[in-house]
């Protein structure tokens, strides 16, 4: 209770401020990426991840790693991957030779997104309103951030993915669990494209 009391008094960045930061990072990434078809570069995504990581570091968010956190991350990974296996009709792996570089970038970008959305944004919204609102706001932001790259059709699926990741955040008490699930689901996606 003591730590919670101290946390509640700690000044937090305003939610609009955080979301403005996020929207700006998304805009910069989208523009720098340019036409994202063949040969789309990875570095704008890395810039995006670094910006989000800096934002999360500046605001601060609890970071914990424990067996429970890893377990929650694993369960959330299963929750994300199984529906994709059941419902996606495409089955083809991308080339293994490109995987290490892509995975290295993903291992930076996905946790950075989680530290920002399920960390800083979630904390700010949960303190001001509730955990459910925090899950919803972070999920919606997660869905919206994909629109410039994938189009509006991606919004329902990615928002739902964000909701699963938000519940993982709630269950584990830290952004690390959704970061594990997010990174692992992305990695599986490489082999299911």
């Amino acid at each position, binding site marked *: 209770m*003591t730590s919670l009391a*101290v946390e509640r*008094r*700690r*000044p937090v*960045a305003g939610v609009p*401020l955080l979301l*403005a*930061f996020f*929207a*700006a990072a998304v*805009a*910069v990434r*989208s*523009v720098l*990426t*340019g*036409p*994202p*078809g*063949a*040969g*789309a570069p990875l570095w704008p*995504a890395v810039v995006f991840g670094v910006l989000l990581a800096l*934002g999360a570091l500046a605001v601060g968010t609890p970071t914990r790693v424990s067996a429970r956190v890893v377990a929650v991350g694993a369960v959330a990974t299963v*929750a*994300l991957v199984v529906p*994709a296996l059941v419902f*996606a*009709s*495409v089955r*083809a792996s*991308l*080339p293994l030779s*490109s995987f290490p570089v*892509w995975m290295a*970038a*993903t291992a930076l*970008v*996905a946790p950075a997104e989680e530290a920002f959305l399920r960390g800083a944004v979630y904390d700010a919204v949960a303190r001001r309103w509730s955990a459910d609102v925090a899950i919803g706001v972070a999920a919606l932001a997660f869905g919206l951030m*994909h629109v410039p*790259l994938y*189009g509006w059709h*991606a919004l329902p*699926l*990615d*928002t*739902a*993915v964000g*909701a*699963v990741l938000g*519940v993982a955040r709630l*269950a584990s008490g830290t952004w690390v669990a959704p970061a594990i699930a*997010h990174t692992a*689901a*992305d990695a599986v*996606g*490489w082999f*299911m*494209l």
Partner: protein
Amino acid sequence: MNVSRRAAVAVLLLVGAWVVGPTVMPLYDGPGAPDEPYRYVVAPPGYTKKTPAPTTATATLPVSNGLNNAAAFAASAEVGPQVRVFIPAGWLRAPAGATSIQVTAVPSAAKPPLPSDGTIVSDVYTVTATADGGPVEYVGKNSQEQPVLQMRAPTAQQPGPTFEQFDGKHWKPAETTRVLQDVYQTFAPKFGVWALVQQKPAGAAFGGVQLLLLVLGIVILAVVGIILLVRLVRRPPPQPVRPKKR
């Protein structure tokens, strides 16, 4: 609501999104999987990439009571596939005695007559089906599910191309939906010859709107960074929790 119920709701939302959403690849996020360079049968002038030949999408379906009793899904072998064909179960009728149906989408080069309203930017794909060498009919027109054709464009540049179908004399536009950054979809209620056609000359890769977005994004980032910095500098130290008086 406890965590278990929230988790159940979230998973239901996820399943619902998969069920009602368009057929998309299960890539949730990440930096984005790069496509391989587009494979042309005959590359357009100025296309310098050395690529293998494009591949044919093929699917073989069992026949039951004269109809395909399973959905047909055929995708070519490029990364990502340059063509995907989906035909629901019950849509194809095979001749009597046939045991299987082969659905194919074969790439070819564009040749005259060409579309009058734009430029073909993809390979031309001929979608056909045969049953043990015999003809196959489309019969499931009243089905709720529709046959779908997806094609990947050489780039994701916008405005993107649209589908057109060749009727033997002319190219005719078809309703087109962008389902992925460089993948387009149309309903294909009959076999035939399809291509992606760029209706207008592609705009510059880095146009005025994008430049404005970039400047706006950088300005917002700078302002937000300064505000965060000021807040951090002004952040008061945590106050110790005093025990409550009894």
